[in-house]
């Protein structure tokens, strides 16, 4: 570790910093008097701001971070404890259903999806459900002045062309971009092609031959990126359908990769079959194809 990356330390706490931490701890347990709260607020407003022994600024939420980190641990420990007040702590199924219904409504209202395209050129895909509906409504509203036929034509074809064009542009402008050949697996015996990935740009595409059609109402393909920088968790690369993908001049299916996190050091790309919308946990690994990074 270089000195530049070594965490800095302020050394021992100053008396004011120590006092502020004491007050924040008491505040976390809701035992501050009015005078103590005023004292805490005053210390929090200090300029320059007080820092802890690790050189980090002490903030109002400093204790919350520690408490928040501990709660899941205590919850996990509860499983092993007997006689814990005799209460069941599993989430009841009926409550879960209400939470999902309520959450879906709240999320749809607060985070409206304007553009949904797990596969660029996915016009007409039935896999996006409500999100696609919202996207289409917005799209049509914006294009209201145009002739309907032209709108439909563009919506089907303009995005479809763009994925192949973007791939061609990527390869043209960044010839260092890597390619990794697919190796067919049990759920995709006829699949061949390659992954095209530029780690510096965090951009990539998949080229397929022989990918079987999927019924988007029942299942979708999902891409995963195994990352040496995140060995515990493969990165979700997005979901897609065979029928709505883009074909290039050779008839190959071109699918952009939509990595949900930064990829540090890709080690393996994989495609599985999952339920519509994709999953965060895949139990059986219905593996279609993989591409190892050599």
């Amino acid at each position, binding site marked *: 570790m270089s000195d530049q990356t070594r965490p800095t330390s302020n050394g021992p706490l100053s008396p004011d910093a120590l006092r502020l931490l004491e007050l924040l701890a008491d505040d976390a347990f809701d035992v501050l008097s009015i005078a103590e709260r005023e004292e805490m607020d005053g210390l929090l407003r200090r300029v320059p701001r007080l820092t802890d022994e690790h050189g*980090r600024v002490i903030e109002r939420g400093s204790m919350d971070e520690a408490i928040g980190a501990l709660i899941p641990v205590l919850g996990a420990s509860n499983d092993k404890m007997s006689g814990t007040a005799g209460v069941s702590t599993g989430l009841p199924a009926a409550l879960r259903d209400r939470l999902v219904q309520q959450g879906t409504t709240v999320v749809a209202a607060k985070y409206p999806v304007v553009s949904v395209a797990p596969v660029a050129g996915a016009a007409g895909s039935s896999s996006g459900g409500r999100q696609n509906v919202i996207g289409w409504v917005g799209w049509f509203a914006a294009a209201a002045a145009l002739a309907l036929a032209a709108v439909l034509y563009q919506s089907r074809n303009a995005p479809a062309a763009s994925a192949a064009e973007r791939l061609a542009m990527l390869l043209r402008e960044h010839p260092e971009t890597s390619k990794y050949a697919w190796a067919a697996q049990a759920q995709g015996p006829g699949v061949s092609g390659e992954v095209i990935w530029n780690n510096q740009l965090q951009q990539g595409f998949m080229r397929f031959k022989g990918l079987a059609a999927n019924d988007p109402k029942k299942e979708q393909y999902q891409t995963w990126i195994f990352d040496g920088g995140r060995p515990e968790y*493969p990165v979700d690369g997005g979901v897609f359908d065979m029928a709505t993908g883009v074909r290039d001049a050779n008839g190959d299916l071109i699918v952009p990769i939509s990595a949900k*996190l930064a990829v540090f050091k890709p080690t393996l790309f994989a495609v599985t079959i999952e339920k519509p919308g994709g999953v965060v946990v895949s139990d059986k690994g219905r593996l279609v194809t993989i591409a190892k990074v050599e």
Partner: protein
Amino acid sequence: MVREHLPSRREVWNAGATIRLTTMPVTLLQRVARGETAAVAACIDEYGGIVYSLAVRYLRPVGDDVDDAVQEVFTEVWKNADRFKPELGSEAAFISTIARHRLIDRQRRAMSRKRAAVNHSEIRAMVPEVKNATELNDDARRAAEAFGRLDVQEREILWFAIYQGLTQEQIAEAINIPLGTVKTRARRGLMRLREMLGAASAEGVAR
């Protein structure tokens, strides 16, 4: 090194074994904030148990509606999903913090409405221990290890205060020690926990 790692993963897959193919936990809230409603159910399945468990402990003794509280917590979670920053902490910690604040508010309101008689007799027998650290993910393992390094009296107080949602007066009554001692142990335990987690976090950033 990479070559050694990859085949084993594929071999496991091909053998049909159960594999947890999962994105990092942080991505659930990020997906929610992008409007992916499919992530809502996944988030509830991942964290609903801990939120419900907290709600039961904080609110059942004071007679408040646990189900209503859990719905209130998750509504708060959805509305704040876009504020979650994975580099600042785990998703579990983010949701737990929201849950605790919301539950404390409800608990205090319920207690002011009726001077609830809280029976803590069965709590005294509990020993605050944590799961085997090897069974936990990195964030939880660091927290478990830090918690395990606290004095047993500090662990006990933090367990009662943070997980059971008891006030310091209730803890003093339940385990029959002076209120001042509860306050001192709670403060010292939390400060030590914060310091140890801060040190672990700083080391993680530097690696």
